[in-house]
């Protein structure tokens, strides 16, 4: 009998924990910042000392509603907080204040851009508020763990998808557009390295065509979107291997090991999940009025999808170009400021998405971290278009402009970067090049035009790149 291989479908759901960037913590006035000396940002409330009372930070609820609306969620008119009970040293109260059955947001969706302008809808089950736990460090020499409670009580919004994701790449794309949306909303730093955005993944396989979900594993400890993708790809292969050989998947939590590029069963002393949720009597419920929701909705910023579509239309750009520009809010803003000054939108777009973003990336900053404003930038673009700067020359001027306040004219004259376009000079150079390369000239004369580029290159070299390449090309051709 031939060895029949089953076809499997991958089913993925993601949970994103997002730290909201309020000034203070969710239930107390401690500073909500990353990187302080251990245990210097704690108080009786976030340490869970007897007699202390948590009070909800108004801004936290506002950010949660704002995010929920941007993610097309419904907002619950009545919410409350519940205690999730478990023992772990990073949880000083032995319970986490979370939301069990009345999350702030529910029933939303995220549209993920696909190739050719298509989009895929990933449904969201819910987004609820909770408090972050402390940070554990493990000291292998002293055989102990150290706890820093600064992070305890940091406001978290947990955003949970339906099992709508069908591949590791789709999971990656979802995370990208989610992060971009959150950055536009300005509710979080979204910095995975600092832990302000964390992602756990549930993955299972089922025989193609089957309705029922297979047994899933939960993946944790991925520290970048790339790691999420790699962990999912690894787990997909691992599960398929087991299923193909007739084995069964064990439902468990697995940790991603970035060095080994593998997932491993988590060995933890944490109890079986039995959280005994109940309403937290320390916090009163919240009634969210339609009016309040409307107020927040009216103040939502233009979101990536809308901005992309508008920019595409308004400036007659391709889907690809528009997505590059809306890839960060400041890039989009910079482009629109430039477009006001110069109507050759495609050219402005190319100069931003090419040279300018290259410089920004090389310096590991955004465009706002560069010392150039739309006015001088557009001047460079214009000078490259009208031939007063060569392409290379213009890039050079841009580099210089990034590290000084000097005017573009001044940079060009100081560096002698102006492109040589006057006929007399160019004709002289053309003559010299032709004389020095007679054998090449013969080749061209006999009908092979390919070496013409070589002659232009020689002319450019002679002028240290300052000759107008189009013009010198024409002159050489004419003189042959």
């Amino acid at each position, binding site marked *: 009998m031939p060895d029949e291989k089953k076809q499997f479908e991958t089913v993925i759901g993601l949970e994103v924990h997002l730290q909201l960037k*309020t*000034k*203070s913590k969710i239930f*107390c*006035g*401690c*500073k909500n910042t990353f990187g302080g*000396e*251990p*245990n*210097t*940002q*704690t*108080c*009786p409330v976030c*340490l869970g*000392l007897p007699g202390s009372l948590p*009070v*909800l*930070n*108004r*801004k*936290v*609820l506002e950010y949660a509603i704002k995010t929920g609306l941007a993610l097309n969620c419904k907002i619950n008119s009545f919410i*409350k907080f519940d205690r999730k*009970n478990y*023992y*772990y*040293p990073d949880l000083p109260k032995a319970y986490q204040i979370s939301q069990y059955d009345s999350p702030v947001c529910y029933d939303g969706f995220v549209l993920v851009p696909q190739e050719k302008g298509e989009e895929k809808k990933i449904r969201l089950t819910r987004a609820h508020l909770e408090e972050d736990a402390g940070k*554990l*460090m*493990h*000291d292998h020499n*002293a*055989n*102990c*763990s*150290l*706890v*820093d*409670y600064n992070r305890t009580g940091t406001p978290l919004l947990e955003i949970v998808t339906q099992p709508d994701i069908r591949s590791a790449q789709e999971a990656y794309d979802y995370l990208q557009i989610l992060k971009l949306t959150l950055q536009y909303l300005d509710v979080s730093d979204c910095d995975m390295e600092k832990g302000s955005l964390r992602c756990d993944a549930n993955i299972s396989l089922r025989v193609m065509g089957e309705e029922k979900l297979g047994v899933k594993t939960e993946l944790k400890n991925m520290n970048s979107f790339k790691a999420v993708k790699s962990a999912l790809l690894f787990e997909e292969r691992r599960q398929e291997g087991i299923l193909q050989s007739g084995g069964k998947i064990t439902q468990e939590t697995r940790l991603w090991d970035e060095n080994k590029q593998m997932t491993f069963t988590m*060995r*933890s*002393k944490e*109890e079986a999940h*039995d959280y*005994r949720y109940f*309403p937290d*009597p320390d*916090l*009163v*419920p*919240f*009634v969210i009025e339609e009016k309040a929701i409307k107020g927040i909705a009216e103040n939502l910023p233009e979101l990536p999808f809308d901005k992309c579509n508008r920019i595409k239309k308004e400036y007659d750009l391709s889907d690809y170009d528009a997505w590059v520009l809306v890839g960060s809010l400041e890039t989009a803003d910079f482009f629109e400021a430039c477009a006001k000054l110069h109507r050759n939108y495609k050219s402005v777009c190319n100069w931003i998405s090419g040279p300018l973003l290259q410089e920004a990336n090389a310096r590991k900053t955004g465009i706002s971290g560069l010392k150039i404003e739309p006015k001088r930038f557009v001047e460079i673009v214009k000078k490259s278009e009208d031939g007063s700067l060569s392409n290379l020359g213009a890039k050079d001027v841009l580099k210089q402009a990034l590290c000084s306040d000097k005017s573009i004219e001044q940079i060009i004259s100081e560096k002698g970067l102006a492109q040589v376009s006057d006929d007399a000079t160019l004709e002289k150079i053309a003559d010299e090049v032709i004389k020095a390369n007679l054998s090449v000239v013969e080749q061209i004369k006999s009908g092979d035009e390919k070496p013409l580029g070589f002659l232009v290159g020689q002319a450019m070299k002679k002028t240290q790149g300052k000759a107008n390449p189009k013009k010198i090309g024409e002159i050489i051709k004419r003189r042959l």
Partner: protein
Amino acid sequence: MISEKDVKYVASLSRIHLNEEEAKPLAKDLEKILNYVAKLQKLDVKQIAPTSHVLPLNNVFREDIVRPSLTQEETLNMTVDKMNGSFKVPKVIE
């Protein structure tokens, strides 16, 4: 029926160590308590909204303002075991 196993499970969730002699009578006690409370099940509460809080209060907020925290010293004075500015606990991961 509350078994000794149930008692031990509940005890373990609360990190309470019980030996056999302690667990046995507790199973009986727990069962009595549950039976007593079970009377409530007979009431018809279909028309009553679940109580989520006993106080007739809603929407108690604080503004997003930073207040002084405890110092590291004040915080760590509350523990018996500390190291490098942190609480020291038995190792929790292999």
